[in-house]
């Protein structure tokens, strides 16, 4: 067959390229929020209820310098990533089984509808009974909070893979685990990615809440414990500094890790539902 010529590409004008992305809009919105916060806090003039942004930032800075905040953050992140990894791994195993067998499918459907609505925090008492006060209990509730939403998203994604694509894969003789890993997973990646996002948010939330609940007796607590002790000592600025840290980490994970992952995968593959 005769060659189809490659299309000619033009470079977009510089003025268009400079404003193409969204970061500058986000920066403007953030600056707006900061301004409102600062003004309202000054007007309220009650540092016990609402510290100014300046006070919060300086509390944040000194907590960082003293090494306490980085320490607490690391503790939290370590527990978080461990629980997250275990949750995602278990979800992967469950959804693979569900994709390959009817029994697995039924089992996953039943388990997710039973456990997904159950708030992770509600399992904390049970976790404390089983694992005692400490990291294993935290990891247990995080796994619970990650596992079900991720499994649900993966499973939904697998079911939505177009039949033609499935047949194209099976045509090559693919079956079993290889079919799941090499066809279903990438084909369902948009849904899997959003499941991972939701799972991450749930895990973060659950961790901070769990640390707040039983941080009282934990010696080496995480960020939740930092927030809890700061409140007990009526250092509201430090409470806000702790919250700000939680938000910042969330922003970094969302804005850097997940955004990059999206750009490298579903956007490049033209699979992003715009």
């Amino acid at each position, binding site marked *: 067959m005769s060659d189809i010529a*490659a299309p000619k590409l033009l470079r977009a004008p510089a003025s268009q390229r400079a404003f193409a992305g969204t970061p500058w809009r986000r920066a403007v919105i953030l600056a707006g929020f900061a301004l409102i916060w600062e003004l309202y806090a000054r007007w309220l003039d009650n540092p016990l209820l609402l510290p100014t942004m300046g006070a919060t930032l300086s509390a944040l800075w000194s907590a960082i310098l003293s090494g306490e905040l980085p320490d607490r953050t690391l503790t939290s992140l370590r527990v978080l990533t461990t629980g997250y990894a275990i949750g995602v791994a278990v979800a992967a195993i469950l959804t693979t089984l569900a994709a390959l067998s009817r029994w697995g499918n039924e089992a996953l459907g039943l388990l997710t509808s039973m456990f997904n609505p159950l708030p992770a925090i509600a399992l904390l008492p049970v976790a404390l009974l089983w694992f005692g006060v400490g990291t294993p209990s935290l990891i247990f509730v995080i796994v619970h909070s990650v596992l079900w939403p991720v499994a649900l998203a993966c499973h939904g994604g697998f079911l939505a893979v177009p039949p033609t694509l499935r047949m*194209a894969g*099976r045509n*090559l003789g693919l079956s079993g685990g290889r079919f799941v890993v090499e066809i279903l997973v990438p084909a369902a990646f948009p849904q899997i990615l959003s499941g991972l996002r939701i799972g991450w948010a749930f895990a973060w939330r659950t961790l901070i809440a769990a640390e707040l609940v039983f941080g009282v007796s934990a010696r080496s607590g995480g960020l939740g414990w930092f927030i809890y002790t700061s409140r007990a000592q009526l250092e509201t600025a430090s409470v806000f500094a702790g919250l700000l840290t939680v938000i910042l980490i969330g922003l970094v994970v969302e804005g850097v890790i997940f955004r990059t992952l999206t750009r490298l995968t579903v956007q*490049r*593959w033209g699979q992003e539902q715009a």
Partner: protein
Amino acid sequence: MNVAPRLAGLVGDAVSPPLLALDHVSISYPTRDGILTAVEDVSFTLSAGERLVLLGPSGCGKSTLLRTVGGFLKPSAGEIRLHGKRIVAPGPDRMTVFQEFDQLLPWRTVLGNVRYALERGKSLPRGQAEEVARHWLTRVGLKNFVDAFPHTLSGGMKQRVAIARAFALEPALLLMDEPFAALDALTRRQMQDELLKLCEETGSTALFVTHGIDEAIRVGTRIIALTPHPGRLAASFDVLPESRVRGTAQFAELERQIQQSVFADPEAEYV
């Protein structure tokens, strides 16, 4: 010394089964309201080098039949044999080109799609697979698009990739389910001609599904017409090479014959 193997080959040929044999095949779908028989009691054989076209109106079970040959569905009665062996599962010895554009893996480039198929379907090492893939992509005219992702291609170009992928695996049998149905008339004609050329150059055996008489005459060496609800064999036509040239009297005559014998209403437009 030299005679024995040749003789053995001759004897083997005499009794060797046809490449593909359908033996009283019926195919049905379980539906909510009961069992729907899509294809009923279809038998035919296909020998190497033939290009058999299944022709029939929408809903007569052409895709169903093709998918069953592909191993994606199981017949409810009868059996299908490839080289005398019963077909039980899909495999790279029967490569299907589907009508839908989403048959390519969106997460692999054009080259990646063909290379991956060769790695998995023919167990070629990566380097060799890439070489073969490039060769076939060049043959379908996509040399300039090897690094493009499928979503950036036009529909016709996606079908070209699927065709390159199917040919690259050198299957015993090519299965094509209206691969050009979603293309515009002009592109469709061009693709028919190019496919015909590829098939003739490679001596491929193909089972081709279409509902266009024109397309059937153009690409096939033999045409089997199906009647709808449920799909049954209606008539069979051999296409002589001289009938295959568009615009000739032979082409028009064959077209008229098929139209008359298959479709009760001679005025019915079948494109």
